[in-house]
């Protein structure tokens, strides 16, 4: 009897336990407030169109390149006082993840790399010997232990939509558009898709693809950073027509835009490429259209190197944007200033860079450039467009109105070139000591190291070489980025002053904790 009851109780208990398991796994009706619905601008992964032309680009920077970037930034850097105890010049210290556009040929990638400056003029690996035109081998100018080749090369990996990873070479930077052009080490590693110049109309829906961190991935293999291509939905707000026809830019409004979206690839609803995001203005993304992307890629591929933009050396503002008193402040008489304001045409120059093409052509602040090669200028975009169409090192004719002359004057200017997109990035802009300036003229970029930092690199205080311009006497002499200059012409760098231009620089350097001497013939300024 007792046994039977025990069995009965056990049976009932087991049944109840099974019920408990079922109840525990069954989602109960939650009394919780439903989670916030996804942002309207965020596109669900399921709704994303197939976009094999959109790739993810991983750009890594080591410690030395970070110093280079620091020097080339707008930071005022005279010396490095301290670094982390674990810091190593060779180790990666930063990784940038951005989107890229695979072009039609299956090996070219156009991307807006935010740290492209650090790779400008980076020496490309030597080309394989060609039987047709064998190049004479260079005379070894220095039997020094050279740093690893990869130490200087751009560390760029392209990841296709299906996760395939391919190395990429940095071909060049297009200063007109700000795009970097890469070439995959393995052709057809990504799916080539036709990049058509699809028409864009105001009101069209646009998907802005850019990689984003995956915040909810439960990594089974431990900690790590995960990314996935995401998309924001936006609408074309307005289209900026190019003065010569076609589209110069178009603006897309989308919620939750951030700098993480710059460099993103813009697709229409059909999954066709329509541009790359190259800037943000409030809630609007500025899109570089496909036609200009193609031209940028073509420019860089033709030269197989970075392509500078034309440089005039002026700052200014469209007259249409100025108030009357601003025109008057530039030396214009009231009557002529009023007429100028009414006409709303031209670019009022506000400053001229010394030794620039504009200065050489005697352009002055207050001058108004009305035409470029007989093309009327009404907006800043017009002026930019026509200068870019002219190209660097080209000659253009401006029609200029001046405050002290009644008649308009033609002014011929031979444009120069700059590799950056901005007025601000110049060697002269940086704080450089006398010794630094001297070396800068030789294509050597350096930053001073204070003793605590220098000791970490196995040396005493000195100048860390962060960049040596290729094909310069310094490069030919064997000077490398990563070297630490301890003395110049026998004097410690802390006391060296170039009062006169020496015939050569004898540099005592430390490389891999080994002392070496490099003699660099002085390069005459061109």
């Amino acid at each position: 009897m007792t046994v039977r009851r025990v069995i009965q109780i056990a049976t009932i208990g087991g049944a109840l336990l099974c019920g408990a398991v079922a109840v525990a796994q069954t989602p109960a009706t939650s009394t919780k407030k439903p989670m916030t619905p996804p942002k309207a601008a965020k596109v669900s992964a399921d709704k994303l169109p197939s976009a094999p032309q959109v790739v993810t680009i991983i750009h890594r920077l080591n410690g030395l390149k970070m110093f280079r970037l620091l020097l080339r930034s707008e930071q005022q850097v005279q010396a490095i006082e301290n670094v982390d105890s674990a810091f190593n010049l060779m180790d990666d210290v930063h990784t940038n993840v951005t989107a890229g556009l695979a072009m039609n040929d299956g090996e070219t990638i156009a991307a807006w790399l935010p740290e492209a400056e650090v790779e400008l003029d980076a020496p490309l690996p030597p080309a394989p010997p060609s039987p047709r035109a064998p190049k004479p081998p260079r005379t070894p100018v220095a039997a020094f232990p050279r740093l690893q080749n990869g130490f200087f090369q751009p560390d760029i990996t392209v990841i296709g939509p299906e996760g395939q990873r391919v190395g990429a070479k940095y071909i060049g930077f297009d200063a007109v558009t700000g795009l970097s052009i890469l070439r995959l080490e393995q052709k057809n590693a990504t799916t080539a898709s036709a990049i058509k110049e699809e028409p864009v109309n105001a009101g069209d829906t646009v998907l802005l693809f850019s990689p984003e961190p995956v915040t909810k991935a439960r990594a089974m293999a431990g900690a790590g950073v995960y990314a996935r291509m995401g998309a924001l939905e936006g609408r074309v707000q307005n289209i900026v027509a190019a003065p010569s026809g076609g589209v110069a830019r178009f603006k897309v409004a989308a919620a939750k835009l951030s700098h993480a979206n710059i460099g993103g690839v813009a697709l229409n609803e059909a999954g066709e490429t329509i541009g790359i995001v190259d800037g943000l203005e409030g809630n609007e993304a500025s899109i570089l259209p496909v036609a200009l992307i193609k031209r940028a890629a073509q420019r860089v591929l033709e030269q197989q190197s970075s392509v500078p933009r034309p440089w005039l050396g002026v700052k200014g503002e469209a007259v249409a944007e100025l108030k009357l008193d601003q025109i008057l402040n530039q030396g214009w008489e009231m009557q002529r200033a009023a007429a100028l304001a009414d006409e709303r045409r031209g670019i009022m120059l506000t400053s001229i860079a010394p030794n620039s093409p504009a200065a050489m052509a005697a352009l002055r602040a207050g001058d108004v450039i009305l035409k470029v090669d007989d093309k009327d200028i009404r907006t800043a975009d017009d002026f930019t467009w026509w200068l870019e169409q002219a190209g660097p090192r080209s000659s253009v004719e401006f029609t200029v109105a001046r405050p002290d002359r009644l008649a308009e004057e033609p002014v011929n200017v031979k444009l120069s070139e700059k590799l950056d997109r901005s007025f601000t990035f110049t060697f002269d802009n940086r704080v450089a000591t006398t010794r630094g300036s001297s070396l800068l003229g030789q294509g050597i970029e350096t930053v001073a190291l204070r003793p605590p930092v220098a000791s970490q690199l196995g040396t005493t205080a000195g100048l860390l070489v962060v960049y040596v311009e290729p094909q310069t006497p310094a490069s030919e002499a064997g000077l490398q980025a990563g070297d630490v200059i301890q003395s110049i012409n026998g004097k410690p760098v802390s006391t060296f002053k170039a009062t006169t231009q020496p015939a050569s620089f004898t540099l005592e350097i430390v490389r891999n904790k080994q002392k070496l001497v490099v003699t660099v013939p002085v390069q005459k300024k061109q």
Partner: protein
Amino acid sequence: MRKNNCEVIRQELDELTLGETISVAAAEHLRECVECREFNEKQTRLRQIVGSLGTVSAPPDFDFRLRARLANGANGAAFHFWPLARRGLAFVVVLLVFVVGAIVVRNVFRRPVQNPQLATEQHNTEPAPQPVPAVEQRQQQNPAPEIVATSSDKHPQTFKGERPLRIKRPLVAEDFSNERAEVIDGREPSGAFEVLPLDSSLQSFKVSLDDGRGNARTISVPTISFGSQRMLQTANQYASKRDW
């Protein structure tokens, strides 16, 4: 009416004891009602019979035996209740097992991720962690804090100053219908982009600079950034449209 009288009279007759006289009203009713008269005669005879019985004296231990019997009766009642009590006890035990089982199963199925970093990220619904500008100025003559971002040490997405890990007590059910399915094996459902594991830099970049004007400052750079989340402002991104 008469029937009602019969009932009242018969109740009175029933309550009479031997030798007790009836009321006047009852006597008058008995004269008129044959049926009640017969009832009265039966009751009278019954009382006479009972009254004719002799008295019986109780045994001396009657009181003790009566109490003992009452006590036994109580014990007997408890004995009969025992099976029910045992079932109740069993029910309580099973219920206890049920509750414990439910708790254990729920904890097993809804255990939170043990990785602190990812667990922290789980509560972060923003698409991209924005590097927070931070420049440690030792002297404030030349501040430029807006162009430098913070470091994130070895784990770039666990930012300093972020709230410590809060392991939220898991709920039995939460509505995730508005969200993407969680990626548990590093792969997305078909038709979408892959989730890519990234080998972010392990070494952070944190340097103290001398700007040549007597100002010293510390710059930290995050180990990873997305898009043009700039760590250092350079010309590429912020090119002015008014410079030619």
